[in-house]
């Protein structure tokens, strides 16, 4: 079949600060074809497409539409050139009907005539096989219906190049099939369709050609019929780079955290975690690999007590049998509560009760180290708030992805941010500022945080320093479980290594470290075991010392493979 070029890009480069998102990308899109853009997270797929859609403007390079050089400065310019993009986050007004959203901003009609609009929408829907009620309000719609509205919105404006940014991420298999049928009809109608995706089987089933991007560079464009899952994965992940991370062998790893059959549904009704089960051991780093948005955030937040669950258990295991009770993480009240449950015995094995003793006597006895746990502590953390978890005496630290949103308060200094962990200490009604201040000084000194002073708002520090403050605070809490989500995102090499070393030191201290990362080289170089999560499901557990990037890459992107349990490496 003879095909003409609909759109071509030549030497497109886009930088964000010092980061190069796209580096001299050349790409052609033919008329009447479906082109997949494939690549890992942060490889510049969406950035590249945003430049065609007018969201970003390229720093270098030229775009040609049907042979003519064009300049696209805004989404409106793109619309005028009949290019339409369907973003991952829908751009719809919830309160409006489908028809109102579709007609919004369209210039050609003189009158605001919803009847005509409804008819035209139905016409388009019929032509391509959509199902839509133009009078339905967006807030009443399912995700797939919203997507339909977005696609029709673009078609209504007469677009002949459609860009879909991860259109299947939020759809059910049946909806995906319906979408692909629609796309194929559009293709037959002569439209060019670009799909951004990282799901290999979809690429193979729907597209005519695949363009592979890696680290902002265009690696290759291949005919789908010549490609296989493994050939695509290889191009996507590239050669393994050995990093110089000091990884020690785990010493005597002990199970710390049992996660059993976690299920979680997000506010939009999509199941983001499906029967997730794993065990995190003390003294090792468990990596979690997966495409962004596969449920990593929900998983960590569920453990931290921030995410409501629809099912499952989170069991914290504290090997305390015959160990002395301390006040380091347990409050006096908690100790008394445990004593009333007959959880303690003395060094001769006799049960302990604090009956008739005042607080001072209890304190003295416990601090003498002669109050011992009878059994290992086992606690279910499900449906507990972070405060309740802390009051149980569970030492759980969480370094969230959103450092200045969830981790630290940007407008407060380091001292005040330290106090977020200790504000409940000190005499009633007052806070103890002295210790947090010391801790702040210590973190600045030991982690070499570059800051004008302890009271400088952390927002003004660079990303690496902000991360050091956050990790430093969480480590100072002497955790038993340390969870870190993308702790090196946006950090330079030196800061990244500081963080890796901190995590390794925690591991050597016997902490169960859970590390969510995106760079497979780092995961393979830092972790002991790697858990692969794919669309909320665990698709693999591998030994980081022997696994290959391709192996993990496939588990991250394939959807049909049943979860396979690799040989545990302990």
């Amino acid at each position, binding site marked *: 079949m003879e095909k003409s070029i609909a759109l071509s890009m030549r030497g497109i480069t886009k930088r964000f600060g010092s980061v190069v998102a796209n580096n001299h990308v050349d790409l052609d899109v033919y008329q009447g074809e479906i082109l997949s853009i494939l690549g890992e997270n942060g490889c510049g797929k969406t950035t590249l497409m945003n430049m065609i859609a007018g969201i970003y403007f390229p720093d270098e390079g030229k775009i040609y539409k049907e042979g003519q050089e064009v300049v696209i400065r805004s989404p409106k310019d793109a619309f005028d050139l009949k290019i339409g993009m369907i973003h991952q986050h829908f751009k719809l007004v*919830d309160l409006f009907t489908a028809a109102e959203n579709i007609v919004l901003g369209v210039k050609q009609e003189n009158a*605001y005539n919803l009847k005509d609009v409804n008819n035209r929408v139905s016409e388009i829907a019929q032509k391509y096989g959509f199902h839509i009620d133009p009078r339905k309000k967006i807030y009443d719609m399912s995700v797939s219906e919203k997507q339909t509205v977005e696609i029709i919105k673009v078609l209504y404006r007469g677009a002949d190049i459609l860009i879909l940014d991860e259109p299947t991420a939020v759809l059910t298999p049946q909806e995906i099939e319906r979408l692909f049928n629609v796309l194929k009809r559009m293709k037959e109608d002569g439209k060019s369709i670009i799909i951004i995706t990282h799901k290999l089987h979809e690429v193979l089933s729907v597209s005519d050609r695949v363009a592979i991007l890696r680290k902002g560079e265009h690696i290759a464009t291949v005919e789908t019929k010549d490609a296989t899952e493994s050939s695509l994965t290889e191009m996507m992940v590239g050669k393994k780079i050995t990093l110089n991370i000091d990884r020690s062998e785990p010493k005597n790893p002990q199970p710390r955290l049992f996660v059993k059959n976690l299920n979680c549904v997000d506010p939009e009704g999509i199941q983001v975690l499906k029967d997730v089960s794993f065990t995190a051991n003390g003294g090792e780093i468990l990596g979690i690999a997966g495409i962004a948005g596969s449920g990593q955030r929900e998983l960590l937040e569920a453990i931290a007590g921030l995410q409501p669950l629809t099912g499952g258990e989170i069991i914290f295991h504290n090997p305390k049998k015959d160990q002395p009770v301390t006040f380091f993480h347990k409050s006096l009240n908690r100790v008394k509560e445990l004593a009333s449950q007959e959880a303690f015995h003395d060094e001769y094995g006799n049960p302990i009760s604090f009956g008739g003793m005042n607080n001072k006597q209890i304190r003295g006895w416990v601090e003498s180290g002669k109050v011992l746990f009878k059994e290992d502590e086992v606690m279910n953390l499900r449906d507990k708030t972070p405060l309740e978890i802390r009051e149980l005496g569970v030492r759980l630290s969480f370094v969230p992805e959103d450092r200045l949103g969830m981790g630290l308060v940007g407008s407060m200094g380091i001292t005040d941010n330290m106090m977020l962990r200790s504000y409940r200490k000190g005499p009633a009604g007052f806070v103890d500022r002295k210790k947090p201040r010391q801790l702040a000084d210590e973190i600045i000194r030991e982690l070499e945080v570059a800051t004008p002073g302890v009271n400088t708002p952390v927002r003004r520090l660079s990303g690496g320093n902000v991360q050091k403050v956050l990790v430093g605070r969480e480590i100072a809490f002497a955790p038993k479980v340390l969870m870190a989500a993308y702790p090196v995102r946006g950090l330079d090499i030196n800061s990244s290594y500081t963080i890796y070393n901190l995590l390794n030191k925690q591991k050597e201290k016997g902490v169960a470290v859970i590390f969510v990362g995106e760079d497979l080289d780092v995961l393979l170089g830092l972790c002991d075991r790697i858990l692969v999560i794919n669309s909320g499901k665990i698709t693999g557990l591998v030994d980081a010392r022997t696994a290959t990037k391709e192996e993990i890459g496939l588990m991250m992107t394939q959807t049909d493979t049943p979860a396979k349990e690799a040989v545990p490496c302990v």
Partner: protein
Amino acid sequence: MNVWLNFLIDSLAFGATFMYGSTGEILTEKAGHLNLGIPGIMCMGGAGGCLVLNLVGNSNLPGFLIVILGILGAFFMSVLMGLIYSFLTITLRANQNVTGLALTTFGVGLMKVIFSKLDSVVYLVGPKELYRWPFAGRTDALQCLGVMFFLAVIIALLASWVLFRTKVGLHLRAVGENPGTADAVGINVTRYKYVATMVGSGIAGLGGFYYIIDYMASMEAYLSLEAFGWLSIALVIFALWRPHMTIIGSTVFGFLFSCSSYITNISWINVTMAAKPLLKMLPYIVTILVLIVTSIRNKREDQPPQSLGLPYFREER
């Protein structure tokens, strides 16, 4: 005429003050801007109108022209206030609440200065009967309903028609709900915000002028104007962001606000002087009740515009 009918008509006339204020505020809020400067803007509207009347009141101009000049003076003075607010909150992205409150403080103070320099004889004696057309000269309550009352009703209905029946209205509501979406389809968000905020301020300012010149026609009227500004903002919630609802809402508010002075006339309710201020709280209590009811029903159409109070950065997508 029946005392209750009188009361109702008086409430309508009194309520027109809020009708202007809240219609203006609704237009502003539909563009996503919570303008707490409305009390100050209404004050400045009154001051601007009276300032013009003071200048032309003694001239030989025909009466209706003086009326129109007064109205235009009120409108432009408040549009000017709206421009200050728009520049600060839209272009400079200042905090809307702080800007609005500052504008209220500023407007109320400046109004007092202006009125202290004006000659009430000149601005009040003007062609008063013209404001009261078509019922001028009647002795019953209907005489309160004049040109500016009908103008308020027309503006409220027109605002609803524009908002919910025209393309401009659709675009404006899109800007207030989700400016990112509006921007992406090529709607000029900044222009819509500016125009809506300034026109809204202009309309609100007319309320101040109406209250001083038409409804009260007294030289002390301006002193209580600020309170009606706040009441107008409360009325926006009561009207569920629908301008035509302000016609009913303002009557209810007018009724509730002034019922303290009527209730003493009714023998079976014994209200002491001390209790009167308590009765004046009724509009606010009703507003809270409306808020509770709409929050419980949680109907999307009855909620404030989604991006109300949030500044819009294009780069932040």
